[in-house]
């Protein structure tokens, strides 16, 4: 098919933030996750754990706890001392309420999701009522000294258990009184160290489960104040704990990166007496496991190594499918890199700054696998620091490289970048139009003449870029039926005629840019769109969904193309559908209209529509096999998917010109070395 000159870029120094807390939506298919930088993400189980929503972080808003409440509202609380309610449609903090108790260490919602309890630095436990349009302070429970590190409601909502340092307490919600105090280090002789109760769970049987800094998981009878069972699982702290809905299984996470499952099992076959037994150990993380969650079918853990691990419980699985496989997510399911093809620039988006790099070049050619000598090294041109505490939502560089735009929660910035010889000058474009912020996606037109700003409520703003450095609001595109959700993906056609926009409701709307009219909507498909792009020649819209399906929709004809129907009839290869990371970028080769270039974290694929699709008996990743075959034998083996897994983890891939690719990798080891050291563990030979 051809040889590519691949610019293998590894200087994108992205360090994903560690996972701080997790919250499973009760009876829902979503998982909320908060990172140490304050970012909140929502994963959709139904959409193959797609990272559906991202609310970027904020310097002053750490998140220590997340709670889902009635009406699928998401609340967070942190050391800033505020309770935040997140607007999941507009992907921002909707409102904040001061907890009035200093930093908030913990928060728990009652079983019905109508009340929130927070545990504060000053030792108080406060109750809030979840009301439409916000929360309302209800009352304080009995306050004692010592920060409340963890909280748990009894399923009947009558009692709250709270873990503190050296002690756990049980409150009566009605009276607000402390009705039980249990010293957790009572049984440890002559220990001077304080024992921190990191996590607590109140079971309906009246058993309180705690995990503490001594590495113990303990089961208490709260009424008698006695220790029922104690399991020492680790030499270092057990940081997190989560109980399954049926209360027959517990997952705990330790600071050594190990997680353990406890199960309530009969002592003997058929016996009624049951005990908690430590059953499965897992070592998926290298750092502290600060957060665990127990969904109905999986153990979920998140660590300071930025990994989210979803370990399915095989005994809960009915059939082998997507859910039955271990999933690990380290990198976001969206692009943080944009590329100026013509100028050969890359723009890297970090949480609070952008980096603009110019790629190097070579004047040599070579054979497959060869590394070519560089005649010019890559160059770090500009670093743009975002002012203020807000993190960046999105960014983009124009194809010509002379415009850079980014948006935070409340501000939109457009820069004019000029290159004079070796020097670079960056000028901020003054008086950008007031827009409905934040912007969720930015996209320049291919002639760099206009900028499309994906915005809330399904709207897309069209800005006209003016020389020598100005901009003007031209139009705002909106779906005719209205949409409450924000637009999170955009695609613009090369001829500047069409724009496709995807909102949080996964509906794809296509607009005609010549007359700024809504052209049509792509038939609804019940899965999240992970990437889309418009073919430069045929104006076909190629859509990748999080269930790994691929569709091709002809914009002029307002219908799926014949090839797309053929794909749906034949079905995609089993191995393709079982991949666990979504396609994050689609691009095309203008010289080869039948080629679609797509990639996810683990592979880069050129999809050649002119070749037959592989059936399930064929080998999907057949490149290495093909390379060993003689030319004549290859022809019979060729199929549409040409997959290269050489570049991993692949954060971005794009075609610079006909046979020149850029691949942005972020080797796991590179950022692991930048993480704080994990708890030292004695390993053999060290």
């Amino acid at each position: 098919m051809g040889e590519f000159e691949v610019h293998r870029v590894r200087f994108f120094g992205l360090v994903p933030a560690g996972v701080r807390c997790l919250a499973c939506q009760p009876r829902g298919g979503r998982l909320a996750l908060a990172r140490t930088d304050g970012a909140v993400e929502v994963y959709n189980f139904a959409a193959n754990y797609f990272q559906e929503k991202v609310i970027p972080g904020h310097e002053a808003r750490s998140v220590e706890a997340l709670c889902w409440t009635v009406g699928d509202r998401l609340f967070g609380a942190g050391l800033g001392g505020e309770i935040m309610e997140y607007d999941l449609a507009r992907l921002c903090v909707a409102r904040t309420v001061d907890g009035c108790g200093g930093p908030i260490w913990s928060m728990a919602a009652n079983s019905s999701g109508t009340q929130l309890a927070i545990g504060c630095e000053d030792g108080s436990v406060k109750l809030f009522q979840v009301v439409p349009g916000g929360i309302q302070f209800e009352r304080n429970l009995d306050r004692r000294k010592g920060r409340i590190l963890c909280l748990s409601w009894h399923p009947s909502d009558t009692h709250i258990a709270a873990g503190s340092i050296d002690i756990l307490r049980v409150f009566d919600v009605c009276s607000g009184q402390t009705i039980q105090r249990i010293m957790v280090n009572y049984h440890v002789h002559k220990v001077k160290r304080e024992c921190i109760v990191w996590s607590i769970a109140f079971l309906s049987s009246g058993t309180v489960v705690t995990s503490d800094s001594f590495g113990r998981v303990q089961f208490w009878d709260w009424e008698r104040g006695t220790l029922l069972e104690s399991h020492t699982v680790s030499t270092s702290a057990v940081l997190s704990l989560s109980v399954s809905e049926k209360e027959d299984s517990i997952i705990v996470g330790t600071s050594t990166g190990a997680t353990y499952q406890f199960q309530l099992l009969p002592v003997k076959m058929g016996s009624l007496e049951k005990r908690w037994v430590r059953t499965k150990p897992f070592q998926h993380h290298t750092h502290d496991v600060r957060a665990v969650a127990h969904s109905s079918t999986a153990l979920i853990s998140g660590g300071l190594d930025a990994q989210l691990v979803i370990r399915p419980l095989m005994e809960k699985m009915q059939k082998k499918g997507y859910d039955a496989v271990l999933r690990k997510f380290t990198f976001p399911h969206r692009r943080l890199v944009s590329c100026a093809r013509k100028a050969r620039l890359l723009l890297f988006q970090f949480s609070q700054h952008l980096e603009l790099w110019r790629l190097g070049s070579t004047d040599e050619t070579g054979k497959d696998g060869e590394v070519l000598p560089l005649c010019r090294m890559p160059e770090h041109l500009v670093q743009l620091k975002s002012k203020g505490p807000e993190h960046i939502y999105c960014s983009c560089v124009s194809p010509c490289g002379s415009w850079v735009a980014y948006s935070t929660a409340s501000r939109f910035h457009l820069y004019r970048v000029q290159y004079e010889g070796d020097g670079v000058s960056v000028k901020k474009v003054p008086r950008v139009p007031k827009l409905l912020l934040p912007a969720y996606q930015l996209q320049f037109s291919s002639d760099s003449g206009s900028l499309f700003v994906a915005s809330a409520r399904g709207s897309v703003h069209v800005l006209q870029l003016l020389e020598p450095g100005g901009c003007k609001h031209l139009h705002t595109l909106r779906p005719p039926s209205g949409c409450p959700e924000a637009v999170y993906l955009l695609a613009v056609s090369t001829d500047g005629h069409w724009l496709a926009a995807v909102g949080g409701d996964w509906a794809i709307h296509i607009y005609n840019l010549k007359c700024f009219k809504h052209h049509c909507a792509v038939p609804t498909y019940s899965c999240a769109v992970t990437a889309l792009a418009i073919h430069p020649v045929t104006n076909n819209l190629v859509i990748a969904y999080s269930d790994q399906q691929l569709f091709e929709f002809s914009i002029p004809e307002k219908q799926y193309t014949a090839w797309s129907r053929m794909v749906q009839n034949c079905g995609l290869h089993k191995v393709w559908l079982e991949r666990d990371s979504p396609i994050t970028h689609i691009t095309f080769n203008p010289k080869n209209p039948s080629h679609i270039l797509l990639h996810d974290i683990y592979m880069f694929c050129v999809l050649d529509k002119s070749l037959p699709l592989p059936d399930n008996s064929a080998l999907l990743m057949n490149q290495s096999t093909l390379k060993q075959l003689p030319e004549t034998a290859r022809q019979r083996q060729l199929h549409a998917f040409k997959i290269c897994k050489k570049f991993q983890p692949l954060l971005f891939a794009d075609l610079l010109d006909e046979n020149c690719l850029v691949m942005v990798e972020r080797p796991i080891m590179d950022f692991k070395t930048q993480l704080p050291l994990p708890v030292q563990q004695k390993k053999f030979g060290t």
Partner: protein
Amino acid sequence: MAALCESFTLCGLGPSGGVGLGGGLLALEPGPDPDHVLLTDRGRTATLFKVSDQKPLGCWSVKHGQIITCPVVCNFETHEYIAVHDDKVLRIWKNKDINLDKVFKATLSADVYRIHSLPNGGPVVLFKGGGVRTLDVLLEAPQQEIENIISDEVIKWSEAFMEGQQPVLIFATEKDGDFFVYVQKLKMNSLHKYKLEQQELSKPLSFTAYIKNQIITLLCLYSNDSVYKVLIPLQQNSEEEEQILSKSLLLKLSVSGSVLKGTSFVVLDRDHIAVLGSLAASGEDSKECLTIWNTKFQTLQTSKELPLGTSGQLWCYEEKFFFTHGKVLTVIMYKCETSSLAAAVGKLKDSQTPDVSSFVNWNTLGDEELVVSLQSQQSVALKSESKMTLRSKRNTVAEVQPDTLSVGQLLLNLKDASTTVFEDELRQLISKAQMPDFQATIGCVITALINRCKTNPKYYPRNFLLHIVQTRDLSYSLCPDLMAVALEKKDVHLLQICLQRFPDIPEEITYACLKVFLSISESYLQRIDVNLESVICYIDIEFNNKEVKTEIVENGFNAELEQDIWDTKITKETHVTADGEFCPVGPQKAALLNAVLHSAYSETFLLPHLKNLPAQQAVLFLRYLYYLYVKCSEKINTTLPGIRSPTISQIMDWMCLLLDAHFTVMVMLPEAKELLSNLHKFVRAQVRFYSELNKIEGSLRELQRLNHQKDSQKYSIEVLELI
């Protein structure tokens, strides 16, 4: 393989600057220290260079109107420089002197041809008339009369060597197309004149020579593009009139149709010479080249074109070539490794040559090479030609030696001669290196000697035999009775040398040697001169019998303590006897046994003989092998220090062989029991140790692989092919 390495420019030689002001170089001589050279140009200047820095360290010029006529040399003993200007005026100065006008001056009575500076012998002055003086003698009376010994011959070339403690000067002269070679031994004040055998239609262009084993090998580059070799024995009993030196073809300087017109050449080592000249293929322009040739295989090893032209001069010091290339003096380093078929098939005996020597060490020249080259040149030179030379010889000098025709006859004649005459004649016969079938001659000589020994039981020319075996390359098959006689006479030194040098000793003889060595008493051996170089580095010659301290338990008895003592006793005993702390045999015996270990053998042939070894001797030998094994294992590289010391694989092979041969006996022997158990323990420990090392190696390799994988490159452009 020989190879030319990187080159650099030492200095410019142009008229506008640099050295020599365009006049060219007279000569290049080694400087006072390594890496230093002394350049003398064809004018007034001498310059000292540090080669690796390409930097002049000093420059001295004589006055305008004067001219340096002889290459400046350095007196290595005093670090003084010696120059001659205007043929007769001698100047001597030191590094710190700047103006040559003010330094020591002596005007001599005759013209100087050249001064040779010898590393340990001081400078030697050769006058144009052929007279030779050491500098010391000359300086005592500078105006002393210098004799003219070559009348109207012209000196073409000269060279000086140290032979033992005395300087030897060799020079070649020419008169009317005839070439003569003079060899002067300074201390003995002896001068020999030889005439170089004539070669039709060509004459010598360049000479070089080296000395080895009292034989000067003179190499001559002839105008017919060939290099000839001439052997001149230094030991010359008869002070006869001039002899004719016959020469043999060493190398034809032609390669696949193109011929190298050599102008000068140097010898690099025993197999390699470097020739500077112009390579001319038929129908093409000639190109000047520097070439390295292998004389053994008659091949051109490497060459480098010199398009800017040279002056035809080539010098070589410290593995560097020096020559003028265009208008600069160029230095090219070279590498010259011994090439042999054995090396090519990986069967090279590891000869313990000194690691890196910047000078060519002629003592490492294997004699076998001389012989082989002699033989090969015999075969290369056409038979008819050799006949012709013989005839010409006979024509020119009527009463040359009775020659080869009569080696057998000569020996026959000598059969009844007195011992001294007999040995003298044989000595002379051997020193004639250029005889055809030289090897066979030596065989005959030895056979004659041995026969004499056999007939006369009292006659045993120990030293003469030793000398022959040591200096010539013999083999067992050439003189099968030699070792038998030596065994009979218990001449262990000769046996040792034979074992070390003969490649083809039958296993039976090897076994016989071993048996003799093991059976000879230590006290007898102590009086005998044996080559100890293989043991001297590791054996403890001083037997310090440390007294074993015995612990005394006072007042009764403690079972545990008793047990302890018992244990320590045992361990101590083993320490002394078997644990390899002390050598079970004396150094002389050890050296002899090492010679046996070193000899080649085939297991299947040796084993039946070995079974006959008496049990006590077998145990002793095993004990010694065990000692060697322990010694080997002490060192990280498991090799014993010293020359010709046995290797670990030799030790192990012999140990296995001995155990195979004597296992049943050993098991029964009470004194061997402990040795065997210790040996077993030690080997087991070693096996464990090495398996651990293997594990570590595996882990380290894995680590290395991981490191390799984790390339920290932040950016690269790679080629990716998708099919």
